[in-house]
C-alpha cells in the first residue's frame, strides 16, 4: 500500500499530519517512552510493532493525548496540541480504538453515532454517517441490537465503525485484532484495509503481529524498550534491520555474530564466532561494504535458507554448510527446521520438501544461502 492521499503541499514543504517532538513518558521514576522525533505523513498508515512492554500502546496514548507526557509535545499539522482539555480541538479531529471494542451500553446504532454526537453533529446527519460506516464494516444489519448481545468480532466491527464515522484526520488503532479468533480476524483486516483506503485517513496502527504490520503499514516503526529503534518501509525494516534487537523481533531467525576476515569491492568474508562448538568456525560470504576486522551481525531470514542432501550439487549458493537437523517444527503449510552447522541455522521448508528429504532430527543435511540473502549490521 502506498500513501493513499496526497497532502495539500504547504509553503515550507510537506508538514507531517502528526509528529512527536521529544516526547517522554515516565512512570514511577522510570522512563517508559522516549521518542525524540517521529512523523506520520498525510494518508499513510504507520504500523508500530515491537515486543510486549516496548511502549507501543504508551506511544499511542501519548500521541492521542489520552496520556499526558512527562515532557515534549505532540504536533498536529505542525502545531502543538497541548494536553488535557486544551487538546480537545485536536481530539475532535482524531478517533481511537482499542484491543477491546469498549462499546457503550446501548444499541449498535447509538454506539456508532456516539463520536458524532459528542461533536454536536445533528441527529439525522449522525445517524446517516454512522449507518454508512456500519454498512462499510458489514454490521448494518445489527443496528437495532443491544451492544451487549454482540460477538467479539461483531463488537470490534462496530467499534471500528464508530471511529470511522467521525471521519477522523488521524485514526489510532491499538491492537484491534488481538482479541479475535483467527476466523473472524481475517475478514475484519480486509474490511479495515478497505475502509482505510477509502477514507484516506492517516492512521497509527499498533500491533505485535508482523504480518498485520506488513499488510497494513505503509511504514513500520519498531519499538524496543520505550524507544523507536527503527522507522522505515516494510522492506527496509524487514530486510535491513537497524540493530540486533530489531532483527530478532522482525523475525530474522538467524543472527550470527561474526568478524570480517577479508573484504573485496562490495563483498566480504566473515568468520562466525561460535563458542562452545567443535570444528572450525564457518566462513560466510556476504554482500556489503565492511573493513577487515569489523564485527558484524549477519541476519539471515529463514525463507532464504535452502536445504539439500549432502553430496548433491544442486546449489549455486556461495554459502553451503554441512550440518545435522536438530529440530523440525510444523507451522501450518511450512516447517521450521533448525540445522546445527556449528551454529544453528533456521530454514523454512514446505511440508512437501520435509517429506521429500525425510527431514528428521539427526539427519545430515547441507544448509545454504546466497551472499545477497544476508543483511549485515556493523557493530
Amino acid at each position, binding site marked *: 500500500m502506498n500513501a493513499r492521499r496526497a497532502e495539500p503541499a504547504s509553503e515550507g514543504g510537506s508538514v507531517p499530519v502528526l509528529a512527536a517532538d521529544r516526547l517522554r513518558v515516565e512512570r514511577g521514576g522510570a522512563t517508559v517512552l522516549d521518542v525524540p522525533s517521529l512523523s506520520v505523513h498525510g494518508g499513510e498508515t504507520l504500523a508500530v510493532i515491537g515486543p510486549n512492554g516496548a511502549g507501543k500502546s504508551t506511544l499511542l*496514548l501519548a500521541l*492521542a*493525548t*489520552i496520556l499526558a507526557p512527562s515532557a515534549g509535545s505532540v504536533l498536529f499539522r505542525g502545531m502543538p496540541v497541548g494536553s488535557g*482539555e486544551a487538546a*480537545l480541538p485536536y*481530539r*475532535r479531529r*482524531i*478517533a*481511537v*480504538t*482499542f484491543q*477491546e*471494542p*469498549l*462499546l*457503550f*451500553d446501548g444499541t449498535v446504532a447509538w454506539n456508532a453515532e*456516539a*463520536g458524532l454526537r*459528542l*461533536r454536536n453533529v445533528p441527529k439525522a446527519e449522525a445517524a446517516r454517517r454512522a449507518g454508512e460506516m456500519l454498512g462499510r464494516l458489514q454490521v448494518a444489519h445489527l443496528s437495532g441490537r*443491544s*451492544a*451487549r448481545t*454482540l460477538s*467479539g468480532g461483531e*463488537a470490534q466491527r462496530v467499534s471500528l465503525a*464508530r*471511529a470511522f464515522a*467521525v471521519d477522523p484526520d488521524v485514526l*489510532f488503532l491499538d491492537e484491534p485484532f488481538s482479541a479475535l479468533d483467527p476466523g473472524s480476524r481475517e475478514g475484519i483486516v480486509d474490511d479495515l484495509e478497505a475502509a482505510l483506503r477509502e477514507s484516506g485517513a492517516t492512521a497509527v496502527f499498533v500491533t505485535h503481529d508482523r504480518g498485520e504490520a506488513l499488510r497494513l503499514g505503509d511504514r513500520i516503526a519498531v519499538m524496543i524498550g520505550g524507544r523507536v529503534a527503527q522507522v522505515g518501509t516494510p522492506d527496509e525494516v524487514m530486510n535491513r534491520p537497524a540493530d540486533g534487537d530489531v532483527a530478532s523481533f522482525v523475525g530474522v531467525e538467524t543472527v550470527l555474530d561474526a568478524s570480517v576476515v577479508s573484504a573485496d569491492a562490495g563483498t566480504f568474508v566473515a568468520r562466525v564466532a561460535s563458542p562452545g562448538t567443535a570444528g572450525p568456525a564457518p566462513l560466510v560470504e556476504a554482500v556489503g561494504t565492511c573493513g577487515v576486522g569489523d564485527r558484524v551481525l549477519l541476519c539471515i531470514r529463514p525463507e532464504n535458507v535452502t536445504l539439500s542432501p549432502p553430496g548433491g550439487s544442486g546449489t549455486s549458493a556461495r554459502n553451503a554448510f554441512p550440518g545435522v537437523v536438530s529440530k523440525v517444527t510444523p507451522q501450518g503449510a511450512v516447517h521450521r527446521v533448525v540445522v546445527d552447522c556449528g551454529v544453528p541455522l533456521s530454514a523454512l521448508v514446505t511440508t512437501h520438501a520435509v517429506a521429500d528429504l525425510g527431514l528428521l532430527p539427526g539427519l545430515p543435511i547441507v544448509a545454504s544461502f546466497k551472499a545477497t540473502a544476508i543483511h549485515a549490521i556493523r557493530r
Partner: protein
Amino acid sequence: MQMILDGLREALRLLVTLDPEVVRIVVLSLKVSGTATLVALLIGLSGGVALAFLRFPGRNIVVAAVNTGMGVPPVVVGLFVSILLWRNGPLGMLELLYTPAAMIVAQVVIATPIVMGISLAALQALPEKLRWQAVGLGASRLQTVWILVREARLPLLAAVMAGFGGVISEIGASIMVGGNIKGYTRVLTTATVMETSRGNFEIAIGLGILLLLLTFAVNAALTRIQQRKRPR
C-alpha cells in the same frame, strides 16, 4: 399459634380494605423516605462522581469517612439531628423537631453516604479503558463524566435503591426526631414498634408485611440489576 393466625387474618383485612390509618402511614412513609432518597441522590451522586474522578489531598480520608457513614447507626444520626434541631439548639429557631421535615433531614443523613459509597464503587468498577475510549472519541471532560455515569446507570440505580431500602426500614432516627405522632409523623417502622408494644399484633403484622414487601421489591430489583453484564 391461634394468635398469629388471627393476626395474619386481621392484617390481610386491614390491607385489603385499605384501612385509612394504614394508608396514611404508608403514604407518609413513602413521602418521607422518597424525598430523603431524592435529596440523598443529588448529594450522593455528585459526591460519588467527584470522588471517582478528582484527585485531591485528603481524598482517601473522605472516602474512608463515606464508607464509615454507610454503617453509622441511625440512632446516632437521630441523636445528632435531635441536638441540632432542639428548641435551644443551633437550628432550633427552624422549629423542625417532631415534624416530617426533621425525619427527612435525618434520613438524608443516613442515605447520603450509602448512595455516595455505592456510586463511587460503581464508577470505579468501570474499566479504566472506557474513560480512554470516551476521551479518544473526542469527549470533553464533562461529556466523559456523562458517558461514564450513563455506563454505570444500573449500579447507580442500585445505589438509590439501597439508600431507599436503608431509610424506609430505619426506626431509631425517625422515632427520635419525628416522635411517632399519630397522623403527622407516624411511619411504618415507628407504628410497628408502637403497636407491638401495645399488644396489637394484627396491625403490627400488617405493617410488617408491607415493610417486607417493600424490602423484597427493592432487593429483587437490585439482584436483577447486578446480574446484568456490560457490553464487550
